[in-house]
């Protein structure tokens, strides 16, 4: 028995371990996706073919497509989504760039300000805009202007505020990968900062920008909450679904519109894939990250611009928080704490359920999404295309439709799936899959930061796969993973439209409490509860953030970036030489 045989067995087990890693990375998330997204959606598609009398046919589709209201709604939805996308991409890029590459001040504050729309229940945003810009809002009171906030413009603003943080999330992941050497090459060749921006920064971020555009477009076209509150007479497709399903209990028609809404999603995916075909590979292992610097000509106007946007987001939310302390807005503006005494049955209990559910959703989500994104480069391109398509599809399904699909799928007494119905865990799953696309796209954008030569490293180290993941891949992807975690957590805390169908008389979540308070007429209490949700989320995130810092290793990339900013180029190149574990090239 020689070292030769031992080597052979070792090699075999390395290979096996490798295959097992890649396979399970793809298989488990896919199974989850199938059970908790594809299957329920399939049932909805079935419903869409079910006619009023119980038989099956396409009459529903014909009805919908020939109804004049629908045609108008389609047009409206498209205009709204395209406009929102255009604004969000420009604004989002500006903010992401400001955060990642510029030397403006107050970055932490800006980050927080722009996360506010994400962690506030949709009611808060809508209420805030109304309180500020409504016909009887603060601005009108102070300036006498007559602003017509209801309708297209108000809806546009509300949607921009809602979608912007999601766009920033993805674009930031793209901008995080940078290689200072390209900029140096351009600099030597005489390019000005502006030219460098056009020729290097933008093309580098193309993938992220396209993905962000896709997300904003689909998130807007499926949004119902904002349209209901502030849309006025501007009818969109999502409100049509609501009319059909909730207003007229016409599941078939509602399901049709839901399925039809997948069309723009599919088209958007196609466009995005084609456009990113020409994308070159990601960074190399010796990429020197760009250090942020302050250039007055660029950073002063940029700073003013992005902070203005941030302020708008903050003001809208602050208005609502303040309103929660007001006795009777807008007529009795006296200060009171009474609104925090929630008179709804259950009181604050749903808040804790929400916390549990959101942590479950975020943990599960980050694990599944990371491995799925990680495995994308290691499976055959054909399979990768299919996986990609499935993974980004959820964003095209409105929450309302998703919720119903879950009831159809899991409210069964005769098989195992029925165990989950009525549980908070199912709500966690639903929330995760609702935001699956955004999480996936962010992860995939971030994975491009992992140098390709890690493939070789993985096979060299066989049994140390876990170590490599922890020491090599995670440091590159750390910030991305964290941001996806928090994104899922925040959204899960406040998402509403899907969970209405999953709560029971015993299990409820915070977002539903806010809705119930608002519907019962206790708007100020709804504002108060929303404020509690926001505070809880901020505290929870702060806690988790400190835990993460405690655990992060000293050799993490964050520290290296910090070191590099001292100008120690030497360390960069030396580091590169030190990384010669088993590269075959010199």
């Amino acid at each position: 028995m020689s070292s030769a045989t031992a080597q052979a067995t070792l090699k075999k087990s390395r290979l096996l371990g490798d295959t097992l890693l890649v396979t399970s990375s793809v298989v488990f998330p896919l199974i989850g996706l199938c059970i908790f997204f594809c299957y329920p959606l399939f049932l909805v598609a079935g419903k869409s073919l079910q006619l009023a009398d119980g038989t099956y046919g396409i009459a529903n589709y014909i009805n919908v497509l020939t109804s004049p209201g629908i045609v108008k709604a389609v047009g409206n939805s498209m205009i709204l989504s395209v406009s929102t996308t255009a604004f969000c991409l420009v604004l989002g890029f500006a903010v992401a760039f400001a955060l990642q590459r510029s030397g403006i001040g107050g970055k932490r504050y800006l980050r927080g300000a722009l996360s506010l729309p994400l962690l506030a229940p949709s009611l808060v945003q809508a209420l805030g805009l109304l309180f500020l810009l409504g016909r009887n809002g603060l601005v009108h009171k102070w300036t006498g202007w007559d602003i017509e906030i209801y309708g297209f413009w108000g809806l546009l603003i509300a949607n921009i505020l809602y979608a912007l943080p999601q766009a920033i999330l993805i674009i930031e992941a793209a901008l995080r990968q940078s290689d200072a050497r390209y900029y140096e090459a351009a600099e030597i060749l005489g390019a000005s900062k502006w030219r460098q921006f056009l020729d290097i920064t933008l093309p580098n971020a193309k993938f992220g920008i396209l993905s962000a555009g896709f997300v904003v477009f689909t998130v807007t076209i499926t949004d119902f909450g904002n349209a209901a509150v502030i849309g006025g007479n501007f009818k969109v497709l999502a409100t049509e679904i609501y009319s059909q399903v909730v207003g007229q209990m016409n599941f078939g028609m509602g399901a049709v519109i839901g399925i039809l809404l997948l069309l723009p999603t599919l088209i958007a995916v196609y466009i995005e894939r084609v456009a990113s075909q020409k994308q070159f590979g990601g960074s190399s292992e010796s990429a020197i990250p760009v250090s942020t610097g302050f250039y007055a000509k660029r950073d002063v106007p940029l700073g003013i611009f992005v902070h203005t946007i941030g302020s708008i987001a903050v003001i809208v939310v602050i208005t609502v928080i303040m309103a929660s302390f007001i006795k009777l807005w807008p007529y009795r503006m006296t200060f009171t704490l009474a609104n925090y005494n929630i008179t709804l049955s259950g009181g604050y209990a749903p808040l804790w359920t929400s916390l549990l559910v959101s942590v479950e959703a975020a943990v599960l989500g980050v694990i599944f999404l990371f491995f799925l994104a990680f495995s994308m480069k290691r499976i055959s391109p054909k399979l990768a295309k299919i996986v990609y398509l499935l993974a980004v599809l959820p964003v095209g399904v409105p929450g309302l439709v998703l919720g119903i699909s879950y009831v159809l799928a899991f409210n069964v007494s005769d098989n195992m799936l029925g165990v989950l119905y009525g549980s908070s865990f199912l709500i966690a799953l639903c929330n995760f899959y609702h935001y699956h696309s955004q999480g996936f796209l962010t992860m995939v954008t971030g994975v491009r930061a992992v140098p390709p030569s890690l493939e070789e490293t993985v096979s060299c180290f066989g049994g140390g796969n876990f170590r490599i993941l922890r020491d090599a891949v995670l440091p590159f992807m750390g910030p991305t993973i964290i941001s996806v975690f928090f994104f899922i957590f925040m959204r899960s805390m406040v998402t509403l439209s899907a969970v209405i169908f999953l709560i029971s008389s015993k299990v409820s979540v915070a977002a539903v409490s806010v809705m119930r308070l608002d519907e019962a007429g206790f708007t100020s209490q709804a504002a108060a509860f929303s404020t509690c949700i926001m505070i809880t989320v901020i505290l929870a995130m702060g806690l988790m953030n400190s835990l993460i810092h405690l655990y992060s290793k000293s050799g993490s990339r964050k520290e290296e970036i910090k070191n590099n900013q001292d100008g120690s180029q030497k360390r960069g190149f030396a580091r590169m030489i030190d990384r010669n574990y088993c590269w075959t090239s010199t």
Partner: protein
Amino acid sequence: MKSFSIKNVRIFATGALLGLAVCSQVQAGEITVYSALEEDEIADYLAVAKKSLPDIEINVLRLSTGDLGARIIAESANPQADVIWGFAVTNMADKKIISQLEPYKAANSESLPAQYRAEDGSWFAATGYMGAFCVNTEVLKSKNLPMPQSWADLTNPVYKGEVVMPNPASSGTGYLQIAAIIQGAGEEAGWKLIDDMDGNMAQYTSSGSKPCKMARAGEYAIGASLSFVAMKSVEMGYPISMVIPSDWAGYELEASGLVAGSKNKEDAKKFLDWTLSQEAAEVYAKYKAIITIPGSKPSEMATAAGLPENLSEVLYPVDFAKSAMERPEILKKWSATTAK
């Protein structure tokens, strides 16, 4: 999650079960009630019910009428509720929902006038609510507008852009309002009225209570909404006056019924019986505009609105089943009439 060893399976399963721990399992002596009644109503009613039915644990899931209907239909393959309580009749009468009910002649239900219960006993209605205008007196004052008393008044051009009402396509309240107009004034006059009002209508909201909320916040002068929200707004101190339109007062009955798939029919029936009791009638008086239980005191709200004791005088018999069936066509015509 990479290598699924037995150990990991166990850990995962335990975790899942812990997550499931906050789960709903109904045991004997427990019933699940789906209701569209208002939050504080329910709290009050349950407190009273507890005294009469101490051995039954009553779990209530409250959703707005529209959401609740969608939920009930979605769950039709495996109903989770034992009782549906206080749910708009127009929605209850829908084939998809009524087919889930089991006829049960609750104690006392025979004494209800015929239009307040289903013939075969699948549902009965103990209470009802009315459509009402929420009028913001401050806005009226500042814009120098007269107080409207009826739907016809709303066609006065002086109110242009100051009126909101719910969209009948997405809101039961909105539907009951136009149904009342059409059934009361007749097809031709009714649609004309709707058309004329449309000129003044600033927007059609998606939920029934929104117009009132908008009116009380001062966004618009008049919101055509529900009596309940109107009364609540007055109570809370908003500068609101509740006006029940003198011409066509739309109303909706709140029906209750036994779900055929219930696993605890005994207790469910006991609860349904209670909802028709005198005891219940007494506590209804605090909240409801319409109480159908014979011999019950008229509600404070009804008296305040000037409604006579015998409501059947004012409330013309609305054929709710007909209403439900005609809905698609009426909505189509409404879309066409109000298309801008």
